[in-house]
């Protein structure tokens, strides 16, 4: 089973919940950080890394000698990554999406395969937990192709728990679309509610069961709760606001380990997620 932890709004506690959930989850389990722009899960699980590969995108390299400036490449390119200026062929590697169109249409064989570094894929062990992550190269704009390379190493022989990037655009969709169940982490504030709504709308077409973790409850407002009730989005867990949680998090600790009274809540969450995935979720409070 693949579980994706996602959120519209950033900073709602996705990584906090993810770290605790993998820690209490029945082993074997693989923890995967797909928030490749800002990967943070390793800061909490502190894995020993044992493997690394550089993720690259295939981009065109031009051979000016062979080019006849026919313009077929710039005609097919939808990303303004290759153009003919007078007699001269220019490429803009950072704009390239790696579709291979220019290479396929060039009648002169004037283009060959080159590579642009997207970032790195890293893996290792955090105790019994298999760990996998991607890290985008600073300055690189496109995370989905790197995420595809990370996902090639998902281990489907065990349960996989994914820490997804925030938001609802292409990187977030890429992180959750192969999941069997999507858990949206939010908070009962106007920002939390608005972004929860966006996330639900973005992920509904994927057609997988979704549930909510309501974090830092006890203040804020009722908007997110009302929305869950109105749309039938089950609240799988509430985590009351507690300053100690913020402090332990700031010390790099995993909440399920550092605060024993919270451990039971995450065990409960794990059970709820299994029920949700099996289509037989019982007795949910829904606020």
């Amino acid at each position: 089973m693949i579980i994706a932890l996602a959120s519209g709004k950033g900073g709602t506690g996705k990584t906090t919940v993810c770290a605790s959930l993998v820690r209490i989850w029945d082993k074997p389990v693989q923890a995967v950080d797909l928030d490749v722009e800002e990967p943070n899960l390793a800061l909490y699980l502190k894995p020993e890394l044992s493997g690394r590969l550089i993720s690259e995108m295939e981009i065109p390299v031009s051979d000016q000698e062979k080019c006849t400036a026919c313009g077929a490449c710039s005609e097919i390119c939808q990303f303004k990554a290759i153009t003919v200026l007078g007699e001269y062929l220019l490429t803009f590697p950072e704009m390239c999406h790696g579709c291979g169109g220019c290479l396929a249409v060039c009648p002169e064989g004037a283009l060959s395969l080159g590579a642009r570094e997207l970032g790195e894929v890293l893996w290792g062990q955090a105790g019994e937990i298999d760990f996998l992550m991607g890290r985008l190269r600073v300055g690189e704009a496109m995370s989905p192709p790197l995420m595809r390379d990370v996902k090639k190493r998902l281990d489907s022989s065990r349960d996989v728990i994914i820490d997804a990037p925030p938001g609802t655009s292409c990187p977030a969709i890429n992180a959750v679309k192969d999941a069997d169940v999507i858990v949206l982490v939010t908070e009962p504030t106007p920002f939390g509610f608005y972004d929860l709504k966006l996330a639900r709308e973005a992920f509904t077409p994927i057609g997988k069961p979704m549930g909510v973790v309501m974090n830092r409850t006890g203040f804020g407002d009722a908007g997110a709760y009302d929305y869950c009730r109105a749309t039938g989005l089950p609240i799988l867990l509430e985590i009351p606001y507690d300053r100690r949680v913020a402090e332990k998090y700031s010390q790099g600790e995993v909440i399920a380990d550092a605060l024993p009274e919270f451990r039971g809540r995450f065990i409960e969450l794990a059970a709820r997620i299994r029920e949700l995935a099996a289509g037989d979720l019982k007795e949910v409070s829904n606020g």
Partner: protein
Amino acid sequence: MVEITIISGKGGTGKTSLTAAFAHLASNHVICDLDVDAPDLHLILKPENEYLEEFFSGHEAIIDQNLCSSCGECLERCKYNAIKETPEGLMVDLLACEGCKVCVHFCPVGAIEFPMRRCGQWYLSKTRFGPLVHAQLFPGEENSGLLVSLLRKQARGMAEKENYNLILSDGAPGIGCPVISSLSGTDLAVAVTEPTPSGSHDLERVVNLCEHFKIPVGVIINKFDINLDQVKKIENFCQDHGLSLVGKLPYDHAFTEAMVQAKTITEYQSGDLAEEIGRIWARIEALAQLKKAA
């Protein structure tokens, strides 16, 4: 005219709450929400929309089942695994399609249409603090970077035409495509961080990004009282990288209380916290002028 962009690397550090407060404190400015994926600034600024335009960007491939011969040429050529074999025939998974046109070009029977993709909407609005340029990318869409560039162009045009001397922008979290588009050519980036391992890690990455594009950076440490050791680390980092630390703010529920009432923190209360935010804003303005002059 000066452009100031508020960023954070990590989400949830208080970037939007602070941008809203700065929008309240600043004068003669255009406000811009560049977090087009999950925009929240309008929830506090309550804009009145005066102009709306659809945002089209790129194309998407659609297979006409009446013409398709199921030869599989598209399936083989697609680098994004966007062509799926279904009982109804070959279909394009629009969530995976990047609109590269390769399948359209190579389809031997011309069965693939390639319409423009409607990705979102953008708006020019009026708020109690001045004009707001903002947008909403539709769920699951891409090309957020292009939409960000479009908003910045609109804001600049408006500032030039109507003699505003400041553009204040709320950026997106992360370091990817929308953030890069938010930063290029801005006069000052202000990074809002928090004293946690994720906060400092993400700050370092977003500062590296700014250095890469030669954008000066000011730093605000929010929720500083959560962990003073981490604060020290961030202060050292700022010193090593020659970044201006423009202020520190405590963890305070007033931020959420203000948000619930759709007010900025500086409208909601007038105590120490609001005063400190006022001083921080004055430092940011001075720093932006200084960097602009340099």
